[in-house]
């Protein structure tokens, strides 16, 4: 059974995001294990990029911390391979397309397969451009996750029909970051998605309170928390492990039944 499916198996999924290599790759391995212990069902690992155009200041700062510490795509693959000896938690990369393009789509997907990465989320690759990557990723059993935005409207069905793994429902306009209020009618978006596919949905962008976790996990099959977790890492640095377990456990505890 594909590991991503397992994350949504008969339960709502808490998906936690970390920037790989922030503050170091050794710590990334520890943090993933702590988040799993706290109740995360799937981990999204960000490959740091010099110019993360879809990310807000919190994740931008994490990218800089990681790159400054010398993190590279190859080192991240090595870390994941080592991590896989200790955990079978579903794992996807969040990466900008240039990272894959420069590594080579074929080589990147092969390494994902070898190291145990189950999927990729690429914020700057829309439906219209996915043809250059998806056939290659499929051969290596790497799911290319579809993003659906508040502005997708009549595109939703077209996007959802071809979705693999899970569908990332972007709750808000703009870049990633902590938001007090989310005004998009995500319930309507999820309804339209469900009318054409059984692929599970997870809502992300801006989620940082237990109330939001409850609300959005009542609507979708999971929630994604990114900036709020990265902020914990930013505050506690190398000591963030215990804090992350505690934080994730609190947030995951707020999931709807």
């Amino acid at each position, binding site marked *: 059974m594909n590991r991503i499916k397992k994350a949504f198996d008969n339960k709502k999924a808490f998906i936690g995001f970390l920037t790989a290599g922030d503050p170091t790759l050794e710590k990334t391995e520890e943090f993933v294990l702590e988040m799993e212990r706290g109740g995360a069902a799937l981990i999204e690992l960000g490959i740091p*990029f010099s110019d993360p155009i879809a990310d807000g200041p919190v994740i931008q700062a994490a990218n800089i911390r990681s790159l400054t510490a010398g993190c590279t795509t190859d080192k991240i693959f090595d870390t994941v391979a080592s991590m896989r000896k200790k955990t079978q938690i579903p794992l996807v990369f969040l990466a900008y397309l240039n990272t894959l393009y*420069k590594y080579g789509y074929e080589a990147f997907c092969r390494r994902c397969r070898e190291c145990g990465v189950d999927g990729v989320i690429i914020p*700057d690759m829309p439906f219209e451009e996915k043809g250059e990557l998806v056939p290659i990723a499929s051969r290596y059993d790497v799911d290319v996750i579809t993003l659906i935005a*508040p502005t997708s409207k009549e595109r939703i069905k077209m996007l959802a029909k071809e979705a693999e793994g899970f569908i990332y429902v972007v709750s808000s306009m703009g*870049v990633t970051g902590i938001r007090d209020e989310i005004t998009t009618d995500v319930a309507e978006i999820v309804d339209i998605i469900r009318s054409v596919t059984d692929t599970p949905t997870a809502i992300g962008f801006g989620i940082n309170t237990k109330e939001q976790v409850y609300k959005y996990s009542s609507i979708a099959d999971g929630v994604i928390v990114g900036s709020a977790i990265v902020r914990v890492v930013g505050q506690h640095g190398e000591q963030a492990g215990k804090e992350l377990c505690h934080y994730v456990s609190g947030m995951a505890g707020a999931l709807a039944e």
Partner: protein
Amino acid sequence: MSKGRFGKHGGQYIPETLMNEIHGLEKAYEHYKNDAGFVAELDNLNRQYAGRPSILYFAEKMTKALGGAKIYFKREDLNHTGSHKINNVLGQVLLAKRMGKTRVIAETGAGQHGVATATAAALLDMECEIFMGKEDTIRQALNVYRMELLGAKVHAVESGTKTLKDAVNACMGEWTARVSDTLYVLGSVMGPHPFPTIVRDFQSVISREAREQILEAEGRLPDVVMACIGGGSNAIGSFYEFIKDESVRLIGCEAAGHGVDTDKTAATMAVGTEGIFHGMKSYFCQNEYGQIAPVYSISAGLDYPGVGPEHAYLKDIGRAEYVPVTDEEAVRAFEYIAREEGIIAAIESSHAVAHLMKIAPTMRKDQIIICTLSGRGDKDVAAIARYRGVDLHE
């Protein structure tokens, strides 16, 4: 493969949030570019407001001094706002207005595109916000104040290298946050389709005029058409109508900074590799893992780690050549053309003048070069003085 390709380059590599908006822009542009009312209004603005056509000036003194080819300058520096940027922004802001938008946002490097956008927004009654790297707001402080005078709000971008690429990042982020009433007025032939095409079409007025003007003046086509290139809008504008004239050599002059063998350079064609960034597949200065390189040039307008996709294609098929020009060469050209012709040209344009000074003497006297002066150099005077160690107090 998706739309908007130049060979393998181009495309639409942007977040899903922007896809409907970019399709809307595509449709609106396809409609209005053939709409007689739109075309007439833009033509009227170009003539009555921007001062077009710009003159094609025969530089007799430089021609004699360099002792080779006849030198003509296409004087985009004489346009309203002092650069070629006005050609594009009048078109795009007018388009935004026809699309029912009330607000425009734009990135700027040297400030020329920001000033031009703020100008067009003032004229056409649009709200305007400009994103400019913090570093550039310091290098070009006067342009910041100029934009504010024109009613624009200027955001100093503090992320990354605090220059043009970071301004583009911030502006794209802002556009994803607010698309319904806002058009991103991109300043160069870059970004996702349809921007490289829209900007090229609006800038191709340069070569359309230049081709007619040279045929009128000389009765024949030039041997060389050259321009400076960062993202590539004045270069593609200068080249476009000559692409079909195979006898015309097209030369883009990019910013080598301290030199292409140093890490202080912005010469994308010389040192860049294929990549996907800022919405397009093209050439970029980047490392082996695809991290975009911090680039450097004395010229804030050429200080960009990529190049427009149509230029990448023209390079691939060998139709255009691209040459690196260092800071020192550009500054010497800046000083040379000022003394020789009484023209203070932008430091960006001076990169093209520098290469012109190399090739003109190697050409025959019956040969012709057209070099575009993309902008005027008033904005650069203080920086050149600093470069020469002159202490200025205003």
